[in-house]
């Protein structure tokens, strides 16, 4: 039996051990690529999201803003991210 769409999304997030917002980030990253997403790239992104859950949730929050708005975040958060070796959300 097919689940309703919201439940399918929630189930997919649960299966990947992600929150719905982290799943949103994952989908956005996949959508940005010009090429079909490989299983390996998807697995790598999922691992990165799991390793940086707070950052991924924050990124998801910002994506929920209106499309005409920039997502603002404090610059020292960005700098802290830039100085780490686990900056998982840059291209």
């Amino acid at each position: 039996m097919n689940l309703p769409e919201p439940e399918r999304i929630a189930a997919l997030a649960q299966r990947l051990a992600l929150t719905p917002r982290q799943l949103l980030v994952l989908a956005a990253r996949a959508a940005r690529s010009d090429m079909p997403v490989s299983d390996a790239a998807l697995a790598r992104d999922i691992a990165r999201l799991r390793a940086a859950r707070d950052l991924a949730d924050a990124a998801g929050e910002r994506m929920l803003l209106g499309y005409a708005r920039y997502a603002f975040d404090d610059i020292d958060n960005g700098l802290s991210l830039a100085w780490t070796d686990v900056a998982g959300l840059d291209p």
Partner: protein
Amino acid sequence: MRGATLILLAWNQWPMTRRCLDSLLATRPYATEVVVVDNGSTDDTLAGLAAYEGRVRVVALAENLGFVRGMNAGIAAARADDDVVLLNNDLVFTQADWLERLRDAAYASPEHGVVGCRLLGPEAEGRINHVGGYIEADELRGQQVEGGPFEREVAQYTTTRRVQGIAFAVAYLRRDCLDRIGALDEAFHSYYEDTDYCLRAADAGIASVVAGAVTLRHDQHGSTQDDGGFRRRLVEASRATFAARWQARMRASQRGNVLWQGTTRSPDAHAHLARSFVRRLDARGLRMAYAPVALEEPSSEDIRLDLAARRCWPHPADAAVVCAQGGHFAQARGRRRIGIGFGDWERVPREWAESAATLDLLLVPDAFQRAAFLSAGVRVPVEVLAPGVDRDYCHPRVPAPRDPRGRYTFLAVVDELARDAPELLIEAFRAAFGADDHVVLLLLVRPGRDASAIARTLAPRRDPRVRMLAHWAYPWHQRAQLLCAADAYVSVRRGGGWDPFAAEALACGRTLVATDFGSQGALARDHGFAVAARRATDARTGLAWAEPERDALVAALRAAHTQHRTEPLAVLVERADAFARSHDVEASADQLAQRITALAGLPQRMPPPRAHRPAHLQRTPSGELVVLGMHRSGTSGVAGLLARMGVHAGPAEDLLVGPDNPKGHYESARLHMACVRRLEAAGGDWKSPPAHAVPVAVDAFRREAGGVIGQLDMQRPWLLKEPRLCLLARELLPLLTRPLFVHVVRDPRAVAASLVARDGLAPETALALWEHYTRAAFEASRGWPRVLVDYDTLLADPTGATRTLHAELVRLGVDGVALPPDEAVRAWIQPNPRSAPPMPGIALTPAQQALQAAIADRSVLDDDAASASGHARSARARAG
């Protein structure tokens, strides 16, 4: 000795009051009395205050009279002559020297009367709650900050500066201000009384300032929260009272409608100018409205810009300023039309020039851009308006997360792939530095049309030393954090358009590396490293721009890195501050406002009221005399003469006698040592006066000198005399009650000759010291009652000059002085046998000659002239 009465107003919420009081007392405020006004609390407040007996005085009111009457009860209970400090009970005193720094700001200038401070909200990350603000005429909403609401603490507004108003959560009110305009107006119950007070002060020529060196924590509205609408009703009632008094006048002060047409988003440089200038023009009396030149979701991050975007404006406006790419100039919707523009090329596109033909005036940031428009055929007047830097946000002390490995960091910002040449920078960076070099390159790729393409292009070029922050948009007020996270800012681009980060990087003390082309070329040549470039063609437009030379870029990166290793930090900071002072956005805003005013035929701003001076008050001097004069100027002679008139110089056992003045100095040994220690603690001495006032040294001096003053106060009139007080007298003003300054002057060549003979100084050095001390002394006493005694005249005619001085003291109201017998005067006033005659061969500089002439004709005593320090008074007083 007077001091300050700290008035803490409490109404219920005892735990909050207790927290406030405990933190306040823990700072051990000097020369103060703490008064807690209980505004009819019904909780444990009164009982709790009993435990503070001996440390605070309680004024208990029978019922809640509101903020204004409660504070006025405290002011009425304050010690006579004390300054007062109004304090909310929802404050937390997180800075030990808060009161001393408020005192510094209060007495930095004679017209300062109302002093506030920076306040942070209760948020853990530190949000700015108040830095001094303004009230606008339309909505009558008192704003607590000049920029945007809820800004993070990024060390903004840390200097002492004038503002329209301060919040009376913390308000230091000088006694002469209270004498002049009285206490708070009881037409208000709570709210708006502070803005009303500041506006009334301004009418009396008294400045409201914010001491940027003080930051406290404030749980705003903690005293009236959860009140079932009580606070809202108070605000509305006070707003109506305020509107009836001020709104029509505030509207009448607006000089014309000016429409800013531009962007708050992209391009970033144009948005930067909108944020820089709209609020500043509004603050200068131009009623600003804002309209975007293209569809955008407004992102002002600025209260006044938000207000401007909500305002309606008449069609056409008195003037329109189009700040956008040149094709938009023809959209100007004003009776007079001004464009602000810049491009990336040697010659701007032809359609820009055609669009510019509709303007009355085109403003450009520099000579390169002027040439670019003129060469495209623009015929309307083209003038340079340097955009300047915002010193309140961009300075070397902005906190920023640095690379934890401590590597030298180059920063570049990338918006457009072709224009900004990031691939060239990465390649040059790799070539410039080997694996052993301790360097890193940080690239910020801002959100925008090219962002994804930039990220894709650069991805293969990445290495561990190249860090990329992609798609990151941050609040505008934090931009200096980005710059201060780096050591060098690199603006090596093909396009020559104005880059706001270049000048701001210099103001932040960073090194600038930029292409020797376009708007950054001159800045890089004068203040940084200019990278040679050859002419190239922009493929998109077919116009000429520049291709930075790779080898030159490599050399510039290496040179920047090498320079960093050799340059002391203090030199870097001083250079940054000097650059910022000479490129101040406030001066640019003055220039722009003046051009708009002239072009549109708008009224000039009303001249400010005559500046307040304590000397104007009809209160007589209290009998506290401060004798000021350079070493070897006859200050001991005049102090001894005053002593013969009955002025108390202190206990005999405390007075110095030395070989260079065997008859006595009439100078307290304790005060002398306090002055010596004060200068030493700041890294100087009397021959090498320190350039800066070190706070801890000021505090120690105030306490030491305060002990002397406290002892002298038992017998008025009294005098303080020490030549070093020329440099330090201002620091004592918070402790002095209506002092009278007695300036002792002497032919500078005689002073110099005496210093040459006594101390072996070079004549030029001696004269320079005379000039420094003399200017500092007259600046310290500016605005206060003062008299001038010419020691050479006193020597020539001891009895006549003594009678003149005595008559002057009596005229000014000094009680207890008697004219000494002529024989006593003649016995005392005799040339010091150790004094040397004037050195006729010593040549005074033109500035020294001018100072000597001003002393001779007494114009040096003119309080409303430019200050004796030789600097014209600025609209924005700064310290620190």
